């Protein structure tokens, strides 16, 4: 085992930021699903048209209120919980599919290789937002539709990386000796190839979560999100009141940027940490 480099500052700051966001999301989960509401009928920010567009700290609202008189802090929290849920679900699903297909495109028969390359190319050619919009119109504008749409556009990236990494690992002597003593393809994948390629893929998964959060918010911004609490949808409504309530857009952007910075810092830090050259 080679000497590991020390945990770098990027990972430290990034995990601190991410930890804060996770704690925030978790508190919101308890508040809306257990304290105020229940699993069958979770609590959602109440709207009160008389309290429209309060500025921060006015009338006891920490961040003020939005266009519908809902507490901006609560709306943001619901959006955070939603974004993190979407980001994690979609990244792990696409990574799972991508890793398996990437592996199969190396060890599988020729037809599998050709087919996976063709499908990957096809998905790369189309603007991913177009695919997402088309899939959403097929499945309907819902949470599951959104997950499906973003997984369809998300897995080819992982497949490409997984293919490259599998190719690299397959040439290593210990993998060749495993094959030589007759380890089957499934066991080879689960016990030998996967542990070798997973650390590198983990970097892409972490960075991918922020990518998914941005894609989802982009769709939300265009009015195609899976929830009214999507940060994109909130930003799109904040944009319409940029003159009257500029703080709304600023607060939303900053909160979103904080989460993305946290994810990117951890991803970059992990890459440096795992890089044998540094």
């Amino acid at each position, binding site marked *: 085992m080679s000497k590991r480099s020390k945990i770098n500052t990027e990972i430290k700051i990034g995990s601190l930021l991410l930890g804060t966001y996770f704690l925030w999301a978790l508190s919101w989960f308890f508040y809306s699903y257990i304290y105020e509401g229940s699993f069958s009928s979770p609590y959602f920010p109440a709207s009160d048209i008389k309290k429209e567009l309060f500025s921060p700290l006015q009338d006891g609202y920490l961040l003020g209120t939005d266009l519908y008189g809902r507490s901006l802090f609560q709306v943001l929290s619901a959006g955070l919980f939603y974004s993190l849920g979407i980001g994690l679900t979609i990244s792990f699903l696409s990574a799972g599919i991508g890793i398996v297909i990437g592996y199969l495109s190396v060890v599988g028969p020729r037809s599998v290789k050709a087919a996976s390359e063709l499908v990957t190319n096809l998905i790369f050619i189309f603007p991913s*937002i177009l695919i997402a919009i088309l899939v959403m119109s097929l499945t309907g504008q819902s949470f599951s539709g959104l997950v499906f749409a973003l997984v369809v556009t998300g897995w080819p990236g992982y497949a490409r990386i997984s293919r490259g990494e599998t190719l690299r690992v397959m040439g290593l002597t210990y993998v060749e000796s495993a094959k030589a003593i007759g380890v089957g393809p499934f066991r080879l994948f689960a016990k030998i190839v996967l542990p070798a390629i997973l650390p590198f893929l983990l970097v892409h998964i972490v960075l991918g979560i922020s990518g998914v959060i941005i894609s989802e918010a982009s769709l939300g911004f265009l009015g195609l999100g899976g929830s009214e609490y999507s940060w994109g949808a909130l930003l799109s409504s904040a944009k319409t009141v940029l003159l009257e309530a500029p703080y709304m857009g*600023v607060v939303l952007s900053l909160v979103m940027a904080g989460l*993305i910075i946290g994810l990117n810092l951890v991803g970059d830090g992990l890459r440096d940490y795992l890089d044998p050259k540094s």
Partner: protein
Amino acid sequence: MEKLIKKFLYSLFTIVLAVSALFFIIRLAPGDPVEKILGAEASAVEISDLRAQLGLDQSLIAQYSNFMINILKGEFGESLFKKKSVSSLLSAHMPATVILAFTSITLSAFIGTFLGIWAGFKKKKTFDNAGRIISLFALSFPIFSLAPLLVLIFSIKLNILPVSEWGSLKHVILPTLTLVIPLSAVLMRVSRNKYLEEVNVPWVQVLEAKGLSSIQILLRVTKVCLPTILNVVAIQLSVVLAGTMITETIFDIPGMGMLLFEGIQNRDYPVVQGVIIYSTVIYMLVYFIVDYLNEIIDPRIKS
């Protein structure tokens, strides 16, 4: 030459496949253009009349073969909503997107490469550290949050640039800035990392031993980094040329992204097909050119 033809044929095959897949998917997706044109009140007779008039009553296979024959003749059909041909719509929307794409890509290519290489050259010094922090921030404000912030600063607070619409040079500045910030941040990171990867190879040590100045070495290493950087520029260019839906929506720019978005919303099949044919061809073309350029810059790639 043979390799070139092979590549060309494969690209053509991919384009045909992509366009065909799209043809069927948009028609099988829920939503009916005829109902959108006539509204909810239309009678069944009116609907079937218009459907026949637009040729949408034929079987999918018949529609597909018509479509393919027309494409070979160079006819993209007519928009179902606007009484205009798809090619006239495409040429009306192309200038805005092309102007936006070329200004922002040219600017970000120069800014990103220069800053990235310089940051790599000054590794772990103040410039590099500041650059890393700035690019991290630049990438953390997605276009739809960056654009409103820029509007807030430059149009509302400082009141020096117009908010939206399209026409004069002043209208190009904010959307260009919106695109340049993330694009150059990506390029900066790519070129920095590539520079650091290339700088530790033996031939650079030979140059050092021969007594070349560090700037001369910097230029030679930069040349080796260019193919990688150009590949990223190519991806960015093909994405931006395909239409920057969000930027165009925010700044109200009549570009390809807007055309595509409206087309999908209205189920305007011919328009969506036209835009996608355009963007897949652009994608392939940009890659062809970049591959060719890369072989000229670094002949090692050929083998």
